[in-house]
């Protein structure tokens, strides 16, 4: 159940967008398709929705073979990055659209629209036109519109991509809560690893038309299957011959069995954290190592620019040898 994708490939001319994708998306969960732009994740989402046809392979949605079905018949809710609001219709009409297509009785439509607008907190805007709403409100309207048809799956294509950072963060938390309430199988595409880690139950990392890794956010963060996944999910630096996250490096002012030693050559403070660059004395690995420490740690260790420090991986840190 959920969404079963088998052997899906897609080319645009000689550009390979997707290469033989096999993927099971579990029912009732929130799954993120994560990867760099142009990696094929949006194409996969659009193929699930029927907005794009695959060159080969099959798509099954909640047990139903949807491969040959047009978008109209798939009963999926789709939310676009740029809202795709029906500009000449009020918020209410936008949300009612799918229900009217399905020829639902008028009072049922009215009731359902009111319910949904309440769910997305737009009750008081029901008679406004999309142009009179902010970006965040428009996207909530688009979400209500997609949910109105009681879709078997909800698909979101970079839903927060066009919003500013603050609204994006709010909507992200709100989507998570909404999903906990509605429990519809949800797939969303994002290139923002923080967004994916924060919101999703499952993560699918896609790059260059292939799936790199599938798992829970913890799995992927702690046990990345490849250098690509490691570096895509967060900042990475090279310490000796391993790749490691900058906050997983233990930094001290006294000599011990360290992996590397060197001087602090750069000091950038961002809020509570301090980003350091340590240039190793090691001639074999002369590239600066990034280290992140909290302000309190830095004070306690009496770190300052130019200080000689010793670095090693912290206990339990994930590293990838390369």
């Amino acid at each position, binding site marked *: 159940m959920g969404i079963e994708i088998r052997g899906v490939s897609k080319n*645009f*001319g000689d*550009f390979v*967008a997707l290469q033989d994708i096999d993927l099971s998306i579990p029912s009732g969960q929130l799954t993120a398709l994560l990867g760099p732009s142009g990696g094929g994740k*949006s*194409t996969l989402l*659009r193929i699930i929705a029927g907005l*794009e*046809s695959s060159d080969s392979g099959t798509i099954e949605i909640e047990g139903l073979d949807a491969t040959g079905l047009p978008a109209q018949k798939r009963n999926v809710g789709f939310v676009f990055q740029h809202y795709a609001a029906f500009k000449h219709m009020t918020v209410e009409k936008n949300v009612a659209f799918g229900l009217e297509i399905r020829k639902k009785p008028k009072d049922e439509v009215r009731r359902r629209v009111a319910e949904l607008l309440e769910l997305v907190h737009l009750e008081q805007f029901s008679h406004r036109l999309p142009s009179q709403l902010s970006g965040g409100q428009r996207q909530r309207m688009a979400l209500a519109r997609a949910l109105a048809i009681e879709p078997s799956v909800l698909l979101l294509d970079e839903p927060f991509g066009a919003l500013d950072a603050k609204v994006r963060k709010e909507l992200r938390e709100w989507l998570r809560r909404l999903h906990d309430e509605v429990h519809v199988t949800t797939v969303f595409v994002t290139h923002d690893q923080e967004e994916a880690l924060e919101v999703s139950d499952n993560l699918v990392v896609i790059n260059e038309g292939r799936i790199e890794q599938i798992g829970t956010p913890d799995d992927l963060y702690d046990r990345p299957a490849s250098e690509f996944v490691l570096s895509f999910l967060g900042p990475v630096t090279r310490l000796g011959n391993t790749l490691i996250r900058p906050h997983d490096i233990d930094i001290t002012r006294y000599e011990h069995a360290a992996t590397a030693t060197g001087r602090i050559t750069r000091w950038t403070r961002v809020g509570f954290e301090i980003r350091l660059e340590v240039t190793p004395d090691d001639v074999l690995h002369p590239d600066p190592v990034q280290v992140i420490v909290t302000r309190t740690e830095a004070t306690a260790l009496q770190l300052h620019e130019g200080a000689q420090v010793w670095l090693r991986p912290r206990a339990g840190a994930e590293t990838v040898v390369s």
Partner: protein
Amino acid sequence: MASRLRQPRTAGTYGRRLLVVAYLFLLVIWPVALVVQKTFEGGLDNLQTALSDPVVTDALQLTVVVALWAVAINTVFGVGISLLLVRYDFPGRGVLSALIDLPLSVSPVVVGLALLLAYGGTNGTFGPALQDVGLQVAFATPGIVMATAFVSLPLVIREIVPVLHEIGTEQEQAATSLGAGPWQTFWRITLPSIKWALVYGVVLSLARALGEFGAVKIVSGNVAQQTQTATLVVEQKYQDFEQGSAYATSFLLALIAVAALVVVTILRPKDDTDGD
């Protein structure tokens, strides 16, 4: 997303394409081709006959002079009024913006009548006074220029105004902040931005100006070799059963207009059909 441009081609796609091509072929392409064909029916004879007829050559010359004057006036006026309409705020701006399009909806015959009522030599409102200072408008070149300028007046403005809106004022403000004066800003920032719209507007105006018939017929008096323009010659030659000359003159007029259009269509950077 390159993929979005592609839509599945259904029978409907081909049906629509076929219908449109057939419609345009029957309404425009074939008839125009026939005129070209008829012009060259006897080789270059028709063109030679026409071009050795002083009535035709004088008319062509007058048409070119009039068209150039009208286009020059409309270009200066058009750019000026577009900038005023888009960049400045003044009472009555909305009304003026609506009125600018007026000439497009007025029959050329009405234009002729209107100019005659205003500038007619004997009973026009301003005509006699102007004649007293030695300026004859109606039944002379100034009248023909005015009639031509009237009918093609909105064309430049209609092309420029949307572009001026589109580019906004940021670039101009940036130029000003870098120390450019109003003229420098206009020549180096605004004008290059509206260049293609302006060229297109000018070409449309030119085509319209070369081809004006009704208004000119009334205000010019239609005197051969004096106030007869090329389009008036076409009518006269056709009615005098000198159809070869009529076709040749038509061909020359059409050639200039269509050639200008084709050149601009090819030169103009292609619009982004993506819609993004």
